């Protein structure tokens, strides 16, 4: 009896702090957000007016909102695609890439793995400010200087509305690749070596070694990478807010949902409208998660 009491007390005392913190700072804001989304709250009045779905109706005729959604959608497709293709390629070279008999990575693969991971440990804001300088629109920019020496450009990597989005995408891929090279390398390391050796003995070249052995065996890890990168693409904020002109410009050509939420809430003080944006973003994220779980269901290869 005393033992059960002690056990209960122990469970309670260990859960009290984490559950309280979590309820106060995470669950309650999420719950409130759904209510605030249906009000016209601007922070001045004590009691916000309930306006039902008006914010959402306004949202769907808001051109900037659609621009943001389009950019998130484009990132959702392009960021995982580019990052995974590049990372898979390098992971393959680093782990199974050596030519000749046997399975081994190319010389210096340790060095490459360390260097490729560099961008991952830098804060996104630091990367954003760094590339703002790299992308400078005249010959003081790291990229424009050699391009102008070749007689090209100068390019307004961040000031040309047609180019700015691609610069954002490029920087995101630049930062993400190293992480996925390491992730795929870890995945490859867990595949028994004899798989590759057997394939080689059967006469598989490097291309079939990649497409018919490596890729199918790594499929689980690729799926995980796809979900992670998809969430990264939906959640992107700092790189756009800090690096681009006018926080998502020029002329909203790089803006995304998260920057619009922040802008509406903390620059225009339209708390209701910003929360409605947040709710839409919430459903996009949940939708993406469910969709990717559905689509990725596939025979697992046991080894």
């Amino acid at each position, binding site marked *: 009896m005393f033992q059960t009491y002690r*056990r209960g007390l122990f469970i309670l*005392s*260990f*859960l009290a*702090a*984490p*559950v309280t913190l979590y309820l106060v*700072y*995470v669950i*309650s*804001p*999420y719950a409130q*957000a759904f209510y*605030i989304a249906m009000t016209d709250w601007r922070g001045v009045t004590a009691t916000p007016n309930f306006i039902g779905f008006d914010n959402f109706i306004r949202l769907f005729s808001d051109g900037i909102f659609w621009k943001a959604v389009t950019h998130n959608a484009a990132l959702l497709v392009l960021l995982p695609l580019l990052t995974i293709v590049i990372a898979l390629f*390098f992971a393959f070279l*680093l782990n199974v890439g*050596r*030519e000749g008999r046997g399975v081994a990575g*190319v010389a210096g693969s340790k060095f490459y793995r360390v*260097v*490729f*991971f*560099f961008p991952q*440990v*830098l*804060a*996104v*804001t*630091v990367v*954003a*400010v*760094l590339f*703002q300088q*790299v992308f400078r629109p005249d*010959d*003081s920019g*790291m990229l424009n*200087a050699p391009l102008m020496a070749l007689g090209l450009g100068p390019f307004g990597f961040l000031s040309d509305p047609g180019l700015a989005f691609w610069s954002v995408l490029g920087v995101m891929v*630049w930062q993400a*690749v190293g*992480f996925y090279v*390491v*992730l795929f390398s*870890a995945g490859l390391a867990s595949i028994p070596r004899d798989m590759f050796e057997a394939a080689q003995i059967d006469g598989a070249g490097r291309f079939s070694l990649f497409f018919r052995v490596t890729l199918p065996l790594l499929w689980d*890890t690729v799926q*995980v990478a796809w979900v*992670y990168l998809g969430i990264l693409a939906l959640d992107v*904020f*700092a790189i756009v807010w*800090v690096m681009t002109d006018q926080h998502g410009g020029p002329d909203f050509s790089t803006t995304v949902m*998260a920057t619009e*939420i*922040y802008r509406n*809430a*903390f620059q225009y003080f339209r708390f209701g409208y*910003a*929360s409605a944006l*947040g709710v839409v*973003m919430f459903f996009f*994220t949940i939708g993406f998660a469910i969709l990717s779980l559905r689509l990725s269901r596939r025979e697992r290869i046991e080894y």
Partner: protein
Amino acid sequence: MTSTSWTAANSRRLARRERRRQLGPLAILTHVALLVWTVLTVVPILWTFLASVKSEDEIFGDAWSMPAGLQWDNFARAWEQAQIGQYMLNSVIVVSFSTFGTMLVGSMAAYVLARYPFRGNRAVYLLFVSGLAFPVYLALTPLFFVVQNMGNVPLVGPFIGLNTHAGLVLVYIAYSMPFTVFFLSAFFRTLPTAVGEAARVDGASHTRVFFQIMLPMAKPGLVSITIFNVLGQWNQYQLPLVLLQERDKWVLTQGIADISTAAGYDQDWAALFAALTLAILPMLVVYTIFQRQIQAGLTAGALK
């Protein structure tokens, strides 16, 4: 003696020639591809380091010119006037407390949820883990007001409201819970139960078993998640941007973002590059020393 060393050198040369013969065009392409990405990764960073010792005029000149002299006072201006020193100190304070708190509270919750079946266990676990799917932007507006209202709590209010480091620490801990609990409870489930039970029979309390037996046994998992949380919280920008609006409270990411966005034309560009260098260099040094653990820590979650 001389003849043996000659043959050794000779055979080495032959081996090298043989290796080079085997290096087909594909192998050369492989190395070219790897080198291209290395250059893409390293050059922007090195270029920033180079610019940090240039003068203002040189920064606005040709991007690839070498500096005439090394302007070390760029760093002094970044540290003092741009307050990078202050911001870095703030970041260190916030992240030390928040990571310690996250690990303490997170491992307690994870342990109980992994090892003590009770009514509602599953519900509490799912409550924590569901946080993994929520975009933080949805909570941003209400969170601002939650923290503002915390400022009105009697006694502790002034310490945990808006513009306080302790307030930010609590928010960091709360938002780190989903992943920490998810990962660590999976980890605790893999540990053997026998040692803990033996200690219980010998009269150790539940609390003592946790701190003196289970935590040391869970060290590999704890190290991974600590690294994950340190990096995640150090690099966080969105939450401090909303919750810390007084300049002298800012963390490093806010300070860095601010020198490039807000200052406008009469901006100290040389100091900006020095500030960037100050933010990048320690991270790279720490990473190079602990790269094995850091890579393992960051990828651990994805491979579970």
